[in-house]
C-alpha cells in the first residue's frame, strides 16, 4: 500500500485481540457458575439464571456497551472505554458460552452418568474424568465459531472509543479519503485473525474425533 502508514492498524489489531481474548476468557469462566445456577435444584435460582441469560442475549451488544459506558459509566461507576467494552462483551460471552456448555452437557448419554454412579466415582471424578472430556469435544466446534463471531463483534467497541481495529480503520479512512482500500485492509486483518482459530478448531476436532468416534 503506497503511502498508507499501517502502524495504527497493527496497534488496533492488538486491542482487538486483547478485547476478544479477554471477553472470551471472562465468558468461558463466568459461564460455569451461570450454567450451574441454570441447573440448580432451587426454582428461584434457576429462574434468575435463565432471565439473566435471556436478557443478556436479547439486547444488541452495541446497546449493552452504551448502557455500561454512557449509562453506568457517567456518574455511577466511572469506567474506561476498554473496561466497559470488556465488561459488556464478557457478559454477553458468558451468557452464550453457558448455552454452549448446556448443549454439550445435554448431548452426553444418561448412561454415562449411570455408569459413573454405579461405579461410585463420586461427583468430582464423574465431572472431571467422564463428563468434561466428552462435553469439551462436543462444545469445541461451537465455541470456536462463537469465538470468531465474538472477534468480529468487538468492532462495536469502536463506538465508545476503544482504539481497536475498526476504530483505526475509520480514522484512517477519514484522514486519507481512501475508504475502499483502508476498509478492505481492515477486513483482511479480521480474516487473518479468524483463520487460525477456524483451522485450530478443525484440527483439534478431527484429532479428537479420530480417537473417540462414537
Amino acid at each position, binding site marked *: 500500500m503506497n503511502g498508507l502508514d499501517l502502524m495504527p492498524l497493527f496497534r488496533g489489531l492488538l486491542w482487538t485481540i486483547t478485547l476478544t481474548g479477554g471477553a472470551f476468557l471472562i465468558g468461558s469462566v463466568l459461564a460455569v457458575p451461570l450454567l450451574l445456577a441454570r441447573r440448580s435444584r432451587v426454582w428461584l435460582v434457576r429462574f434468575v439464571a435463565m432471565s439473566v441469560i435471556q436478557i443478556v442475549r436479547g439486547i444488541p451488544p452495541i446497546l449493552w456497551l452504551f448502557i455500561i459506558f454512557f449509562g453506568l459509566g457517567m456518574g455511577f461507576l466511572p469506567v474506561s472505554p476498554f473496561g466497559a467494552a470488556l465488561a459488556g462483551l464478557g457478559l454477553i460471552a458468558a451468557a452464550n458460552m453457558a448455552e454452549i456448555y448446556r448443549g454439550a452437557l445435554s448431548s452426553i*448419554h444418561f*448412561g*454415562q452418568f*449411570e*455408569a459413573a*454412579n*454405579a*461405579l*461410585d*466415582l*463420586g461427583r468430582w*471424578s464423574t465431572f472431571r*474424568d*467422564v463428563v468434561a*472430556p*466428552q462435553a469439551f*469435544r462436543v462444545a469445541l466446534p461451537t465455541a470456536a465459531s462463537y469465538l470468531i463471531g465474538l472477534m468480529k463483534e468487538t468492532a462495536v467497541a469502536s463506538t465508545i472509543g476503544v482504539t481497536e481495529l475498526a476504530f483505526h480503520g475509520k480514522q484512517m479512512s477519514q484522514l486519507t479519503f481512501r475508504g475502499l482500500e483502508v476498509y478492505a485492509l481492515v477486513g483482511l486483518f479480521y480474516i487473518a485473525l479468524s483463520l487460525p482459530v477456524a483451522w485450530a478448531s478443525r484440527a483439534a476436532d478431527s484429532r479428537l474425533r479420530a*480417537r*473417540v*468416534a*462414537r
Partner: protein
Amino acid sequence: MIASDKTLIRLNGLSKHYGRLTVLDGIDLEVKAGEVLAIIGPSGSGKSTLLRCINYLEPPDGGTITVDDIVIDAGNPIGRAALSGLRRRVGMVFQSFNLFPHMSVLRNISLPQERVLGRSRKEADARSMQLLSRVGLADKAEQFPIRCSGGQQQRIAIARALALDPEVMLFDEPTSALDPELGLEVLAVMRELAKSGMTMIVVTHEMGFAENVSDTVMIMADGNIVEKGPSKEIMRNPQHERTKRFLRAVHDR
C-alpha cells in the same frame, strides 16, 4: 449350587412409585452369598426397577435394603457414606454397556480402581489386564470401545465392574442389545462368573440362562413377585398361572 447359607442381600417391603403408578409393591427378597438369581417377567413388571433400586440408581420410596453389613432404610434420606458403601459392594452391568467412549479399554477398567479404591496406576493396570484376559479380551486393551463389537463391549463392562471387587453383580438385561451370537460370548463369561462363586442377580429374557445357569428364578408381574424357586422347578413346572402364561409366550416365539 449355592455355596453358602449366608444371606448377602435382604430386601424388606421395598416399594417404588412413579406418581400414582406402583412399580414395586413391597418386595421381600433374600439372596444368599454365591447364589445366582434370574429375574424374568414381562416388560413393565418392575424387574429392572428392582435391580436399579438395589444399588440406589433409583431411590426406592420405602422398605429396607441390606447388602452385607450395609443397612439402608429407604424411608429416610440416604447418607453419602451409606450410598458409597452400598455401591462398593454392588457392581452393575447395563443393557447398553455404558463404557466411557473417550477412554481406552484399559483406562475404562483402571480409572475407577484408581479413583474409588485408591490403587496406583500400576496396580490398577495389572488387575485390569488380568480381568481382560479372564473375559478373553487382553488384545483389546489399547483399543477404544467403539472399535469393539457389542459383545466385546459388554465383556469389558463386566471386567470394569469386577475390577472394584464387588460382593454382588447386578445384570440389567445384559444381552438384550446384542444379536444372538454376540449374546452367547457374554453369557459364557457370565456362566464362568457364576461358577466362580460370584453372587449375581440377572434380569434377563434368556430362558436358557435362567434354567441352566441360575440357581433360583423369580418371576415378576405388576411390581410383585409372582413365583420364586429353584430354577429347574420353576422353568419346567411353574405353579402359578401368570408364570405359565409368560413362559408359554416365550416358548411360542
